[in-house]
């Protein structure tokens, strides 16, 4: 089985471990073995070292990358921010002087960045290494007839020149749509597809401005797709959609019920027949109805041994 370093970040293992559990169940079933990167830290997040000092950012990122290099594996991250941060840091290491300075710092803790591990996102591994056909073959339930609005999130899209894998047109992303379509679901286009959800630095600096962006995006999703659920491959977008839709509803800024939101591998795990109390157990929005629908008997494709 192909091995890949599972870089967890912060939000997934600490706040949304059901997403982590969905990785741990889905990947081995699809022929990929996630390897823990013992002792990995925060990527570091945009609001920390990257906001203070470029080399300190690179030092902390490269320590994480070195953990994968030591095990001879590439990195797979489920969080878009981690994907962006680690990819940018690796890109900065092309500068020889910087590389020297960063490795001098890493030497104080007996580590070294070599540049031998590539950075992938969970969505890339599913799309490129596993592929839609294998996903289709692994399903226990077909999601045919269900409508999904997709949210790729910013840091898997731009800037394309620092990423190992990028979209043909990042302003019209297709990877997540194709992954969702592989479950049998319908994935309609909506006009604010590439729009920002407002999470991240914006939310902590000015929550009202962040909610304004989320509301614009939600109205586009609701009016143009009538989606049964929102599916994302960004853990920050997941948290924003899940915790802020109820706020908008409470304030009367949306006149419909919050749309259940999932991380992609949660939906895939459910369609593969895994236990919702392990892979989709933590959310502000009640998702039980749509989970029940996804795993209803009429959707059974085959008996999985």
């Amino acid at each position, binding site marked *: 089985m192909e091995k890949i370093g599972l870089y*967890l970040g912060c939000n997934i293992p600490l706040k949304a*471990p059901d997403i982590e559990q969905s990785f741990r169940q889905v990947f081995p079933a699809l022929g990929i073995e996630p390897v823990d990167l013992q*002792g*990995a830290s*925060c990527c570091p997040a945009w609001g920390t*070292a990257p906001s203070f000092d470029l080399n*300190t950012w690179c030092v902390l990122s490269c320590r994480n990358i070195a953990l994968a290099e030591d095990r001879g594996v590439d990195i797979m991250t489920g969080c878009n921010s981690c994907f962006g941060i680690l990819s940018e840091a690796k890109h900065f290491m092309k500068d020889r002087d910087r590389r020297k300075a960063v490795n001098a710092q890493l030497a104080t803790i007996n580590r070294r960045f070599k540049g031998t591990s590539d950075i992938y996102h969970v969505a890339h591994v599913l799309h490129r290494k596993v592929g839609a056909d294998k996903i289709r073959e692994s399903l226990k339930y077909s999601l045919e007839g269900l409508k999904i609005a997709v949210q790729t999130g910013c840091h898997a899209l731009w800037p394309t020149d620092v990423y190992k894998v990028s979209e043909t047109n990042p302003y019209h992303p297709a990877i997540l749509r194709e992954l969702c379509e592989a479950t049998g679901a319908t994935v309609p286009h909506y006009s604010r597809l590439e729009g920002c959800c407002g999470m991240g630095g914006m939310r*902590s600096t000015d929550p009202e401005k962040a909610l304004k962006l989320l509301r614009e995006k939600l109205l586009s999703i609701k009016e143009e797709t009538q989606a049964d659920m929102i599916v994302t491959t960004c853990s920050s977008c997941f948290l924003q959609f899940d915790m802020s839709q109820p706020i908008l509803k409470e304030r009367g800024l949306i006149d419909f019920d919050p749309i259940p939101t999932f991380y992609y591998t949660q939906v895939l795990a459910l369609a593969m027949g895994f236990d919702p109390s392990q892979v989709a157990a*933590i959310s502000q929005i009640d998702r039980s109805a749509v989970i029940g629908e996804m795993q209803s008997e009429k959707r059974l494709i085959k008996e999985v041994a």
Partner: protein
Amino acid sequence: MIIDQKKIDEAIDTIVAYGGEYIRECVQCGACSAVCPGVRAGFPLLCRNLIRHLLNGQLEEIIEDSSSWGCQACSRCTEVCPQGVRPQEVVFAFRRYQANQLAFSTSSVTSQMNLFETGHAVYVDPKEARKKVGLPETTPTSAFDEQAKQEIQTLINNSPMGQLGLF
């Protein structure tokens, strides 16, 4: 406004030193601002307008503005810029200038402390939630790894961040 070459040089040199290497290439076309979610949300000093202030030598004058902290680092701007300015890197260079002058919101101090103490910018005790979904209660990350925490603290203490007196 009085244009003062000394102030312009100081502003540009500061931004370049903090990582906004290509600020001089800007022709103020505004492509960056057209795609910026922060500009769309209403932050006044991002992308084209921030660069304009800096190229005019206005650095200290805008140090208290919080727009740069509203930047999502999404890099839509960097993708579209026809001049290769990499505006996101200019915004972050300005943010680093602010941070090193301690001109940032106190709420941001918590994530620096979390990073230093646990290796995670966002930290909540995960044991109960992890147990609930059938995972080991502790993570294989720095939060539960003493050696990893020591490594992170050594790296931060030896960095310019360690000299700000936050930890």
